[in-house]
C-alpha cells in the first residue's frame, strides 16, 4: 500500500523508492532494501505497476515504476478497507460514552 501510494504521487525507480520509504517512515521500518524488489515483482505480475527503463535525475540508467489504472483502483480499494478497519479499531478503543 505504501509503495502504491508513493508511486501514485510520482513514478520512481527502485532505489529512490527504497530511500523514500526509509525517509517517510522516519527509519521506523527497518526493512532490508532487498525485500522491496520481491514486492515490486509481485505487483508487476498483478498488473498494478508497469516498469520502463529510463534515465534518472542523476543521469543513471534506472527502471522506473509507474502506477497503472488497475493499480490505482487497487490502492483505492486498499485504502478504503484500511480506513474501515481503522475506524473499527478506533470505535473499539474509544471510551464508552455513557
Amino acid at each position: 500500500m505504501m509503495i502504491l501510494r508513493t508511486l501514485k504521487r510520482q513514478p520512481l525507480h527502485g532505489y529512490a523508492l527504497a530511500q523514500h520509504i526509509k525517509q517517510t517512515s522516519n527509519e521506523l521500518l527497518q526493512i532490508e532494501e532487498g525485500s522491496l524488489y520481491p514486492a515490486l515483482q509481485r505487483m508487476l505480475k498483478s498488473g498494478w505497476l508497469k516498469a520502463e527503463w529510463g534515465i534518472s535525475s542523476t543521469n543513471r540508467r534506472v527502471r522506473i515504476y509507474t502506477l497503472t489504472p488497475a493499480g490505482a483502483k487497487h490502492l483505492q480499494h486498499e485504502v478504503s478497507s484500511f480506513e474501515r478497519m481503522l475506524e473499527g479499531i478506533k470505535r473499539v478503543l474509544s471510551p464508552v460514552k455513557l
Partner: protein
Amino acid sequence: MNFIAQLFRRKQMQDDLSEEIRLHLAQRTEELVDAGMACEEAQATARRDFGDITQVEEYAREMWGWPRLEELLFDIRYSLRLLRKNPGFTTVVLLTLAIGIGANTAIFSVVNAVLLRPLPFPNSDRLMFLTEGNRDIPEMYVSMPNLRDWQARNRVFEGIAGARPHGATLTGRGEPQRLATREVTADFFPILGVKPIMGRAFTADDDQVQSRPAVVLSETFWTREFERDPRVLGMQLELDGQPYTVIGVVPARGFRVIWGGTDVDAYTSLGRLENVIGGPEHRADHFGIYGYARLKPGVTVEAARVEMASIAARLAKLYPNTNVGQSIGVQALLGERVGDVRRPLLLLMVAVGLVLLIACANVANLLTSLATVRRREIAVRSVLGAGAARLARQFLCESVLLSVMGGALGLLAAYCITAAASETLARLPARLVPRFDEISVDPTVLLFTLGLSLLTGVVFGVFPAVAAYRADPNEVLKENNRSTGTGLSDMRLRNSLVATELALSLVLLVVAGLMIKSLFHVLQTDPGFRSEGVLTASLNLPSLKYKTNAQVRSFVRQFTEKIAALPGVRAAGLKQPLLGPYEDNFVVEGQPRPLQGFEPYAEISVVTPGALEAMRVELLYGRYFSRTDDENSGAVCIVDDRLAERYWPGKAAIGKRISTIETPTTPPQWATIVGVVHHVENDASGGPTLPGVYFAFAQRPANGGSLVIHSTVDANVLITRVRGALRSLDPDLALYDVRPLTQITGERVAPRRVSVILLSILAGIALVVAALGTYGVMAYMVTGRTQEMGLRRALGATPRDVLRLVLSQGMRVALVGVLIGMVASLALARVVRPLLFGVNASDPMTFAGVSGLLIAVAALACYIPARKAMELDPIVAVRHE
C-alpha cells in the same frame, strides 16, 4: 502463442531484475563512497543493507515461472536417465507391463465393442426386445393376436413392431437363390430409427392383408445382386414364385447384431399374413415373431415391465384358454443380443485384471529392489534438502513413466492381437459371438489404456515411494557399505507382494482349471447322435407352388429316395428342425391331464424315414419310421428314453399314445409310439433339455427342412449329385446352408473352446510372472545374506541346512499365498458357476491339482537360489564385500 510470449517475457523479467539489483547496489555504493567510506567497505555495506540477492532472484523466478512443471520435467529427465542406466531392469519391467496392459487392452477392446458400444441406431438405449414366456419357457415367440393387443393397450412404448425370420427363394434371375429375409410390421424401421437409403420403407398401406406384395432390400443384397443400381426401385422380384415390387433399400449397419449374426437380404410385410397367422384362433400359436419396441422418452425398463405385466394379467382374464400363465418379457435389445457372451467376457476381463495385478506386484518388487540399491543416493538427496514428498513424487514419476511406456507397448501388442483375433474369428460364423466383426481399437479403448497405465504406475509406484518416505536418511547414511534391504520391514513387504502374486495366480489357475474340465465334460457328453460323415443342407418348398400336403409329401418322398439311392449314401432323410428348438406341449394318454397352460413341453421334430438312421440316433426299443408310416396308416411317433422313463419307468413305452396340443379345444390327435431312441442334446449349453418326440414327415408334412445324408463320398461330389437330383425334380428350388454336421457340432462348443484357450493363456502368463517374482525375491534374499550363509557354514551348518533354510522361508510365503488364493477362488467360484458344465465350482480335484502345481512351481523358483546358497564357498562368502 501466449505460451511462447510468456516464456520470453519471463526471461526478460529476470534479466531486468538482476540488472536493476546491480544498479541499485552500484548507486548505494557510490553514495556511501561519496559519504567518505572506503570503496570495498561501501560495497559490502550496500550488499548487507540489501539482503539476500539470490533469494530475491529465486523468488522472482518462481513467481514468473511454473516451478511445478519444471520440477516435473526434471523428474522425467532424471527418471529417463535412471532407466537408461539400468537396461536389464527397464526391459523386464516394460515387458511385464506390456503383457499386462496389452492383455487388458485387448480384452477391453472386445468388451467395448460387444457389450459397451451402443447399437448404431438413434437413442438405441430405448430399444427393447419383447417376448412371451411361461413357467417352462421363459422366452418364447409372440403370437400375432397378442402382439396386436400389446400394441393397442400399452402406454409405455412409442411403438411395438413385430418381426420374424423367414427365407425366400429368388427365381427368375439365373440360378434360384435362397435369400435370408425378415417379415416385419410397417412400424419396424421407424421404431428402430432407420431411414431408407433409397425409396421408402413400408407404410401401413403395404402392411394389410390385401396390400400388393412389396419388398425392401438390404444394402448388402442391393450391392451384391444389383451393384447398387438405383433402377432397382419399382423392379419386380419373384420370391417363392410370387412377384414383389422393390420399394426401397435400407442400410445394413447394425442389423447383423439384431438378426443374431445373419446378413439379411430383404424384408417383406408381416401384416399381409394377418389372415394366416393372426386372428383369435391363433392366439396360442407362435410363428417365430418377436416384439421390437422403443420406450417413450423418460420411461424406465422397470415401468415398462410393470405395464406389460398388468397387460398380461388382463389378457389372461380375457382369454383364459390361451393366456393363463403367459407373461411378457421386456429387456434391452442390445443386452438380449449379447447376453450369452456377457458372463464369459466379464470373466475374461477379471482374469486379465488379475494378470495385471500380478504384473504390478512384480514390478513393485523390482522397483523396491532398485530403491534399496538407491538408498544411499536418496538419503544424500534428502540430506541435501529434497523433501520427502518431493522424493515420493520422483518415485511416482519413475513408475508412471514406466507404466506409460509399458502401456504404449501394450497398446501396440493389443492392436496386433485384436487384428489377428478378428481375422481368425471372422472365419467363424458371426452368430457364435455377436459383434466380433466390430472389434477395434477406438478412442474409448485408447482412453482406457491411458487411464489403466497411469493407474498401474501409481499402484506399483506407491510401494517404493512409501518406503522412501519412511526411510530415515541418518540411519541409511550411517549404515556401512554392505548391501542392505534384507531388513525386516523391507522383507515383509516383498514377501507379502510375492504371496499376493501367488494367490492371484492360484485364482486364475483354478478358474482356468474348472473351465478346462467343463470343456472336457462337454466334449465327452454324448450328444445322442454321430456327426461324422453326415452332410446337411436346407431346403424350402414355397407354399405358392407346393400348396397341398399331397404335393409336399410326394416331392419329399421322391427326393429323399433319389438321394438315398445315390452311390456311397448309407442313409438319408429330411428332418425339421435339424437340432431344435421347436417346443410344443403334449399330453399322455391315460395320464391325468395337467391344468390348462401347465402341460409339459417336448422338443418336437418331424423326420422322414432315413433321417434318424443317417444321424445314427440309437434305437433302444421298437423300430424307426418306414415308408408305410404315411397318410393312410395310423399316426405314429418315436420318443426318446427321457420321455419314456418319465411316464413308463421300467415298462415298455411301445404302443402307448401321446398327442401334441393343437388348440385347447381340439381333441387330442393320438399318435402311437413305435420306437424309443436315445436322447439327443439339441444344444451344448449344459442347461436342462426337454425330452424329444419325433413324428413321421408324411403324417405331418412341413414346407421344408434339413437334409441329413450319411455317406462315404466326398462332400463336394455328394452335394453336386444332390443338386442334380433336385434340379431334375424342380429347377426352381435352391439348397442352402450346406454344411457337414461336424461343423455344426463343432460350432456348438466353439465359444467355450475360445474362452478356455484364452483363460489358459492368461493363467499360464500369471503362473510364469508369479514364478519369476518368487524367484526374484528369493535370489535377492540369498544374495543379501551371502555373508550370513557363509558364517553359518563356517560355524558348522551343512549345505543341506542352508538349503532347508532358504526353501522353508520361500515355501512359507508360497503356502500363505496358496491359502489366500484358495479362499479368493471359493469366493469367485460363485461368479463362474453358471459357465461350468459337469463340474462343481469348488471341485476338490481342481483345487488340489492347481495348488500342487503352484507349490511345485514356487518350490522350483526357490530351489534355484537355494542351490546357489548351498554351493557357496564359506570362505568366499564371509569375505563377500
